[in-house]
């Protein structure tokens, strides 16, 4: 992914990362920790215990008003009207071409209020797109009651992920505090602003994401880190976040999602409600569905000893180049190379034998069903 020029945003947790000796890298216009103690140890902590991630780079937009649900049904693919207050879901923002501008989580905070959590790399574009579409929407008959607030600078973010997340939660928020179940949202009002607690994550493990006001972030980080450490966990960087999400086959915008491919090609049809009244990109998706998908985002596993697969390596079938890897890594849990690529539909069926070109040498691979890794169920709660 290309990095925008200019000074990088610093996380409100920057000093905490420095104190922990984190290795910092530029990511989506931010300087963020890629690892603390080591990627493999951090990955293992999330799969076996618990990990704490800084996700303050992610953006937040609050959409409110009587028109909020109808407006979101126009700009997003999933059906916002199906969300009850306190529920959230994964959804996508498309252009009319059907290409993906961003993937995000939409939470319904109340009847007329939705929180969108968007990718850092697309924050500015998303905001511009949403603001432009809202301007158009307000010109509709009865469309005026719609407000958008860009909260990205006001919210820090932390993700707590792993089978011991629940124990961390109760250590920090108290034994009686209600656990945010998967895809639910709890909002707690504090004197410094709202605390958003979301039962979501990007690792496949049980966990929650927590968006407190920026000024309070360092104190929350310290409390969460203490609880995570007591539970045998680790602070984790973007390196482990990437290997964890790829083991689950979760797409990363900019790698696996782009304006070049539709959510149907990405295998995200479950998060697209083609039946709802018109939304941006709907026509393109309906046409693509009726014509058949040209390509599919396919899971690929390397066979035997091979270098880690990486984005842009070419996928071959005999003498035919089929495409390039959109994501790839050595899976720390499975100890083999895993990758994803948009392959012509005819080659995307699980069990198709392929080769990956790595530095001029071909390594055997095969297509597999995603996810690559199946998380262990968390231990039953005492």
């Amino acid at each position, binding site marked *: 992914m290309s990095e925008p020029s200019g000074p990088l945003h610093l996380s409100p947790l920057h000093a905490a990362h420095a104190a922990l000796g984190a290795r910092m890298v530029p990511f989506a216009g931010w300087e963020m920790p890629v690892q603390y103690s080591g990627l493999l140890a951090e990955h293992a902590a999330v799969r076996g215990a618990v990990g704490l991630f800084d996700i303050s780079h992610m953006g937040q937009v609050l959409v409110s008003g009587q028109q909020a649900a109808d407006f979101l049904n126009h700009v997003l693919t999933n059906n916002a009207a199906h969300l009850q207050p306190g529920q959230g879901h994964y959804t996508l923002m498309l252009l009319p071409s059907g290409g993906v501008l961003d993937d995000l989580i939409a939470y319904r905070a109340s009847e007329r209020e939705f929180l969108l959590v968007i990718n850092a790399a697309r924050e500015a574009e998303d905001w511009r797109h949403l603001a432009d579409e809202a301007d158009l929407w307000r010109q509709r008959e009865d469309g005026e009651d719609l407000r958008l607030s860009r909260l990205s600078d006001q919210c820090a973010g932390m993700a707590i992920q792993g089978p011991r997340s629940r124990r961390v939660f109760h250590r920090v928020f108290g034994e009686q505090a209600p656990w945010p179940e998967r895809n639910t949202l709890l909002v707690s009002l504090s004197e410094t602003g709202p605390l958003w607690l979301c039962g979501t994550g990007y690792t496949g493990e049980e966990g929650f994401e927590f968006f407190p006001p920026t000024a309070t972030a360092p104190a929350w980080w310290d409390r969460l880190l203490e609880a995570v450490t007591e539970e045998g966990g680790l602070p984790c960087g973007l390196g482990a976040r990437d290997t964890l999400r790829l083991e689950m086959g979760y797409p990363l915008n900019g790698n696996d999602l782009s304006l070049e491919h539709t959510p149907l090609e990405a295998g995200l049809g479950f998060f697209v409600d083609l039946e709802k009244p018109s939304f941006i990109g709907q026509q393109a998706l309906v046409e693509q569905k009726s014509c058949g998908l040209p390509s599919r985002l396919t899971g690929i596993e390397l066979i035997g000893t091979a270098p880690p697969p990486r984005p842009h390596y070419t996928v071959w079938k005999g003498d035919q180049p089929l495409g390039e890897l959109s994501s790839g890594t050595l899976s720390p849990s499975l100890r083999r190379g895993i990758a994803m690529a948009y392959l012509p539909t005819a080659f995307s069926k699980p069990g198709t034998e392929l080769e990956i070109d790595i*530095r001029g040498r071909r390594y055997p691979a095969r297509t597999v069903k995603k996810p690559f890794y199946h998380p262990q169920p968390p231990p039953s709660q005492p």
Partner: protein
Amino acid sequence: MSTVLEHLRYRDSHEWIEPSQSPAAVGITDHAQAELTDIVFVELPGVGRHVAAGEAVAVVESVKAASDIYAPVAGVISAINDQLSTNPGLVNSDPFTEGWLFRITPDDPSAATALMDAAAYRQHIA
């Protein structure tokens, strides 16, 4: 603080070589292994290959990145560390002994003495 061993010579790209040995072992420094982080794959040159000084001859890969390793001197590859195919982490845990990469028979037995000594390499990574 990274370890730098007195008896070795160093290339600016962080390889070490045993001087006045033939064949001479080559590896990457403690500083380099720490910078590269968890090493998960090592690709080594073919035994018998003649390489030029400064030629990219091996690749050391962490989960995040692949890094070229350069021959500190010209010569013929005489052995490779087979243990690294099953245990690449030896480069992290023991970069100067168990984690050596390959042995080279230098064309010029004194070539390595032209590289940085320990004091100069310490300066280089300071």
